[in-house]
């Protein structure tokens, strides 16, 4: 029995990356709008995405939260589409739409049946330059955004993430939360938002991605028809302020009404698609992907110190963070858990992964990459995200599986030594008030 399993494992580990990415057609319109088309014909649907290369990273001090707030306002009326009509039209067409803002980008999507996706283009072309930002709606929506902020303030994890980020970045705008600081939001004026909108929402700062069941030529004609005449002319994306090297561990304690302690540690990481990014992805999986991972095996199971322990490689457009978050089991002293987590880091740093562990992780990362491509929306999202924040976009995405399979354990050990430096970590604890 065991022999059979070993054989199966061997075959699995040797498998070659399959071609998961469908061919992507790229075209750049005269006004600079980048267009990407991915044909997937299994279901009669189309996923339509617009990515703007703007996010909280592009905000100046005093205007934090404007990118995210503006994303809300993009549903509150354009010259052609009055407030509420975008959702209503989408619903009538049997589709879905939504949007999200991160530090590095703002994305808007529509999932529609393939016989009616032109409507998404009409809407997006209208709000690329024609969002009304009606003053009354602006004040009303500000209340909603402040409720969203307040909702986050009741989440002990969100408070901790925010505090650790604000401490890990002193100069770089990743210091600011995407939702913004309360006072900045309260003071933000409609005119300041309009100025921001005009600077950043232009075709030459956007990528349009279409994935699904359509004819390429028809789709390109429609893109030209709806977006071709929009003038370019925003400001090019600026480099953000450079974060100086961290020269010592930073520590913080956040007192919270929450009854359980919570830990968040962040080391300085790398940019998306940096040569080290895939190494940090593998380290992330070695530490916490599934029940075979080191943090689960040794801290949740083995020593039974944590009720959970999770890592994340949060690579971004500029160097991001590598996180470990954990909750001690009731009765476990916070310092014991922290010590054990750092012990696992040191062990991986000193010994690196075993060859067997590496093969398992490579296969796991590869398959999870496939799972992230299951729907047309997934495929469009991946392409848009890469194109917006990575130099070389799709090519980088396509090269990922090969890069992953080429990694050797020695490289992991070396990356551990480069990134998991005590002086470059920020340790945050959320602890109960009054203890």
């Amino acid at each position, binding site marked *: 029995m065991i022999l059979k399993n070993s054989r199966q494992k061997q075959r699995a580990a040797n498998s070659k990356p399959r071609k998961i990415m469908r061919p992507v057609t790229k075209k750049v319109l005269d006004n600079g709008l980048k267009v990407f088309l991915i044909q997937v014909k299994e*279901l009669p649907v189309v996923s339509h995405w617009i990515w703007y290369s703007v996010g909280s990273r592009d905000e100046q001090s005093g205007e934090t939260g404007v990118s995210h707030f503006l994303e809300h306002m993009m549903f509150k009326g354009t010259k052609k589409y009055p407030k*509420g009509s975008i959702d209503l039209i989408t619903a009538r067409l049997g589709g879905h739409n939504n949007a999200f803002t991160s530090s590095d980008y703002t994305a808007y999507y529509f999932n529609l049946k393939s016989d009616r996706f032109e409507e998404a283009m009409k809407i997006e072309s209208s709000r690329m330059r024609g969002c009304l930002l009606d003053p009354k709606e602006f004040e009303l929506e500000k209340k909603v955004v402040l409720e969203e902020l307040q909702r986050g303030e009741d989440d002990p994890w969100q408070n901790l993430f925010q505090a650790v980020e604000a401490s890990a970045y002193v100069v770089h705008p990743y210091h600011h939360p995407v939702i913004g600081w309360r006072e900045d939001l309260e003071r933000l004026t409609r005119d300041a938002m309009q100025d921001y909108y005009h600077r950043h929402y232009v075709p030459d700062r956007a990528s349009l991605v279409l994935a699904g069941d359509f004819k390429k030529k028809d789709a390109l004609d429609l893109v030209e028809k709806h977006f071709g005449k929009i003038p370019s002319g925003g400001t090019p994306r600026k480099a953000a302020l450079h974060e100086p090297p961290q020269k010592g561990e930073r520590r913080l304690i956040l007192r919270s009404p929450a009854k359980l302690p919570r830990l968040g540690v962040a080391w300085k990481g790398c940019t998306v698609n940096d040569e080290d990014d895939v190494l940090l992805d593998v380290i992330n999986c070695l530490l916490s*992907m599934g029940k075979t991972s080191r943090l689960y095996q040794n801290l949740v199971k083995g020593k039974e110190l944590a009720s959970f322990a999770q890592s994340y490689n949060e690579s971004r457009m500029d160097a991001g963070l590598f996180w470990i978050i954990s909750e001690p089991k009731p009765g476990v002293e916070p310092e014991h858990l922290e010590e054990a987590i750092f012990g696992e880091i040191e062990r991986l740093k000193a010994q690196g992964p075993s060859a067997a562990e590496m093969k398992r992780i490579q296969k796991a990362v590869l398959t999870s990459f496939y799972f992230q491509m299951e729907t047309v929306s997934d495929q469009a999202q991946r392409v848009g995200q890469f194109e917006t924040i990575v130099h070389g976009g799709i090519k980088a995405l396509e090269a990922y599986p090969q890069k992953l399979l080429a990694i050797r354990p020695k490289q992991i050990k070396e990356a551990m030594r480069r990134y998991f430096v005590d002086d470059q970590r920020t340790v945050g604890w959320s602890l109960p008030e009054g203890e």
Partner: protein
Amino acid sequence: MAKRQAKKIPHSSRLRFKIHRRQLPNGLVLLAVQNTTAPTLAVTCSLMVGRMEEPPEKAGISYLVGESLDEGTQRWTGDELAALVEGYGGSLVTTGSGAAIRMAAEDASLAVKILAEVILRPTLPKDGVRRMRELALAELQSERDEPRTVASLAFQHLVYGEHPYGRPSKGSLETMASLTPSQCRSFHKKWYLPSRAIIAGSGDLEPEKLLDLLEKAFGSWKDKNSKPLGVKEPRELDGPVQENLFYPSNQVHIYLGHLGIKRTDSDFYKLLVMDHVLGTGPGFTSRISRKLRDEQGLAYAVGASITHSAGIERGMFSAYIGTSPGQEKQAIDGFIREIQAIRREAPTRKEMEDVKAYLTGSFVWALERNSNLARFLVRMERFQYGDDYIQRYPEIIRAVSAKDVRQVAEKHLHPDRSVCLRLGPK
């Protein structure tokens, strides 16, 4: 001519899924569809096991059994199982009502073997069950730090009373702490039965081949007759119930509602249309989210639904809002006003058209991801939607009239016999 005819074919009929069904002599129903979008596979085994099978003093046992299914089987230890699943880049999730596995489609045979092991032959080992119990206890404590969860559980208890649905699925700190591995093994033996299970798979694989694999793995599963516990139906409220709970949060969390319907209720589709007019439309198209969020700026999260929780047992009608202190009255008045309005007057023609267009047109999205598709197949079988459901669904929705919506709203929504729970700062 052919071209013109082709244009007349409704767009939804282009959904190309053919559902393959097989019922085994032991009562187990197997379902499979092929989806070639990605080289992946998802298989779900869903059991009719949960709180209804738990005596009150053992509340949380179905959760604990579910969490412990992959702690070891007759063939593999927990660590071996994890190494096997993860070595193939798959994921296995076990819950209080079964298990679901995702793997690359080429590893289908192994995926089915693993699923069969955790469902049919878990050893529920002493140490594994103990650890899972301690993790459940830690989670129960952690949930106390989430105000919305605390509010939701308190609301549920007020609506269902002593009915099993009034209890959290993890039970309480006391009941969870008292559960033993041997109780877990007895529970598994008694309730994990083929006649209570449906297994469905979707992925890049010939459906008949998947059914063959499933039949081979689950064909020997023995059925028996386990007598249900004889739980009484939950009681309707006689009048309004108000509850005000202190919590040191920034926002106030409000739940308003009462007992709802079973999924098999003949009013289900009429209420589905009503839900979308009233409180659960996409974006901010429903009356409640449009008025309370979009027009009054009271909340980021707000909504209401009766069909969402409808299942084998009665679900709940619940309206929720998270808002700033001081705005509670405006929010509650808003809920009541909208509930009364839909009970009193039929929706407008335009509202009906919009909601029907959304419901009939958006159906396709439920079928997009393998794991969603597998879950959809399970629901289809469990609630006997019928083989032609995908084709019939638009007709069912189109047949609902504005008058129907008003009538079912009046019949099923009772603002005068509701629980209104407020949790937040003083």
